[in-house]
């Protein structure tokens, strides 16, 4: 293994402030909820104090969004809305380095990912959707599709800025106003995005960002003056929200958990497949709803592939998220680390064979060494439950039919991977995957033009592309 000297990005670039306020009606204001302390998961140090919303703050934010909707945003020509959204895209690019470093500090993800994936993709989502704002009549929902009103949006901690972009950009393009709640453990980049929005001179109240815990999210999605709810997070919480909205007229879209199969056939280019498997499960510490967490390998190549996989995973560098050489950063919270440990212990108890990378781990912070379980059966918890961590479960199959049956043997249905050199087999398999995104001979690719979202208990509605606009239009 190559030795690398540390190459840390400077944390000064993040412009970290001791305290952050919520953003309501165009202004940064103190919330009246109990302030939260956000922690750097790589060091366990407190990064900043962040004010949170109380129930009455939620109400104030929704009122501001309603007023902005009624008086300004819904009346503004799409061509003008478009220019505001383009401004946001440009500012994210301009402040990209600041946002990337701040994201890595607050979330624990490696700087090379926040720099090369999260921030540029966030900018591209705004840029893409800006162009739709004055072209909605061409989107296939009739000549003059109307917005829904106020959107209440709740996002997770795994891609804090990117998820904010996925939610806010299409909502604004379609003419809605927004109240967004970032995750409790990762509120900072959303609040810098609020600063971007303020600098872009968006009319007050069009975007409101209110940090807080689950109770703030519950108050937001349940607020009677919210017309649209968009949630990305766990399937358990998604079900609660869907149940809560029963009998209302609120439109709902959900992007929930997954347990994706990454299927490798015996004719696959193995070295490429190994790279794809590693990317599929260790990207973002495995904190990815569409992670390829179940590796299905054709039996005849299973031993060879697992051996190559162990060798490759052993080279992954786990550690300081700000180091440009880091491959796997910190687990986002102690709570998540505990859950990963608990689930992997169930793997041991149920008889799977654990292999752990011998990479050194930092002394403090929340870290978990990349782990691969072999001899996994479909009944085991590690094959059924979303671990949301750097843990891969390896199962085998003999025939394509068996691969299809095993891949689809889950209540989830977000994504799948297929590795084979045979084109007709790729298409045959892709057609049979009960999953919203199928990556063939690649994995974890995202683009604002490509609709993303799940089948079954992975949620409903799509984000991105023409299809994604439906979530924010009254159609």
């Amino acid at each position: 293994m190559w030795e690398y000297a540390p190459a840390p990005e400077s944390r000064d670039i993040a412009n970290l402030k001791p305290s952050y306020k919520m953003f309501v009606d165009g202004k940064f204001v103190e919330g009246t909820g109990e302030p939260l302390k956000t922690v750097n998961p790589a060091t366990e140090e407190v990064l900043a104090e962040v004010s949170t919303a109380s129930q009455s703050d939620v109400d104030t934010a929704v009122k501001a969004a309603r007023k902005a909707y009624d008086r300004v945003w819904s009346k503004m020509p799409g061509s003008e809305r478009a220019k505001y959204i383009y401004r946001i895209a440009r500012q994210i690019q301009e402040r990209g380095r600041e946002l990337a470093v701040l994201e890595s500090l607050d979330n624990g993800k490696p700087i090379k990912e926040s720099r090369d994936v999260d921030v540029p993709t966030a900018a591209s989502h705004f840029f893409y959707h800006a162009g739709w704002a004055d072209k909605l009549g061409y989107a296939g929902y009739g000549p003059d599709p109307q917005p829904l009103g106020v959107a209440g949006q709740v996002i997770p901690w795994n891609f804090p800025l990117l998820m904010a972009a996925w939610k806010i950009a299409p909502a604004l393009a379609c003419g809605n106003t927004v109240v967004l709640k970032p995750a409790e453990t990762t509120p900072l980049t959303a609040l810098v995005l609020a600063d971007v929005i303020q600098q872009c001179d968006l009319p007050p109240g069009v975007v409101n960002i209110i940090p807080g815990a689950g109770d703030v999210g519950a108050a937001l999605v349940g607020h009677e003056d919210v017309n649209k709810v968009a949630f990305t997070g766990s399937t358990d919480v998604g079900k609660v929200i869907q149940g809560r909205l029963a009998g209302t007229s609120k439109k709902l879209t959900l992007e929930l958990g997954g347990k994706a199969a990454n299927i490798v056939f015996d004719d696959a280019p193995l070295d490429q497949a190994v790279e794809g498997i590693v990317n599929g499960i260790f990207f973002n510490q495995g904190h990815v709803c569409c992670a390829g967490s179940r590796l299905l390998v054709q039996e005849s190549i299973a031993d060879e592939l697992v051996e190559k996989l162990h060798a490759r995973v052993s080279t992954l560098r786990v550690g300081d998220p700000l180091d440009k050489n880091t491959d796997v950063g910190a687990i986002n919270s102690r709570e998540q680390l505990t859950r990963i440990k608990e689930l992997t212990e169930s793997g041991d108890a149920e008889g799977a064979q654990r292999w752990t990378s011998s990479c050194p781990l930092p002394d403090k912070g929340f870290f978990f060494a990349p782990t691969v379980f072999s001899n996994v059966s479909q009944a085991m918890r590690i094959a059924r439950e979303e671990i949301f961590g750097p843990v891969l479960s390896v199962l085998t199959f003999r025939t394509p039919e068996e691969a299809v049956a095993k891949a689809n043997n889950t209540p989830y249905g977000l994504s799948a991977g297929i590795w084979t050199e045979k084109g007709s087999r790729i298409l045959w398999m892709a057609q049979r995957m009960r999953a919203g995104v199928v990556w063939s001979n690649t994995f974890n690719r995202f683009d604002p033009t490509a609709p993303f979202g799940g089948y079954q208990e992975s949620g409903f509605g799509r984000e991105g592309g023409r299809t994604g606009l439906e979530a924010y239009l009254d159609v």
Partner: protein
Amino acid sequence: MSDRLTVAKTYKLYIGGKFPRSESGRSYPVADAKGTFLANAAQGSRKDARDAVAAARKAFDAWSGATAYNRGQVLYRVAEVLEGRREQFISEVATSEGVPAKKAQSLVDTAIDRWVWYAGWTDKIAAVLGSSNPVAGPYFSFSTPEPTGVVAVLAPQQSSLLGLVSVIAPVIASGNTCVVITSQDRPLPAITLSEVLATSDVPGGVVNIITGRTAEIAPWLASHADVNALDLTGAPDSLRADLERAAAGTVKRVLRTKPNEDFTATPDMSRLRAYLETKTVWHPMGV
């Protein structure tokens, strides 16, 4: 007037391409709009609903895997066979709904035409709702609509044929299969329609029809783990929120319809879209 005694039909369920009685052995009297007894209909049970879901699931792979051209021809065939039995349906709709013959005629004609309309959609949905995605990288990416799976349909309570056709056709046009609970008080045209479906090359299990008490059967379908979507059109108002809550337990797609939907108007794509997933497929480009 002939003194011949007519042969009265036994109205049964339609499950998996067969016409069973309710496994519960129950039936309930059905009257015309004036209250005159017409027939005893089968009173479907929880078990009938579960059998119907199993039949719909079994039929799903072949029906969703059939070519769009094939599905289009099957739906068109339904229109053909329905046209041939037009007089029978006019009479049944007039009796069930208590409308004059002329109105019943127009409802039946519109129902026939609705099959033709949806038959024409089967091989156009992918072109209209799918896309080639111009992603920023060396990848070929495309998105295509796919059927969501098994759909539980609570058919409209008033419009016994046109409404029924208007809620079934968009479900099966795109390759879904369904379990339908008919209008509770006007179930007879639905059972006669199932005779049309059974003789129109619609594979058994693609459409399953249950008569009975909507409020009794619907909750079992709303909470059934192998049902992917729920159409609330004919749900009693008092039950709608409960059904939606039950559906949330397995993240079903729920179609909440606006009250008093006008089925005589030409539909748009919204009922097709309600039961479609979008699948995005990526592949690298290179030499």
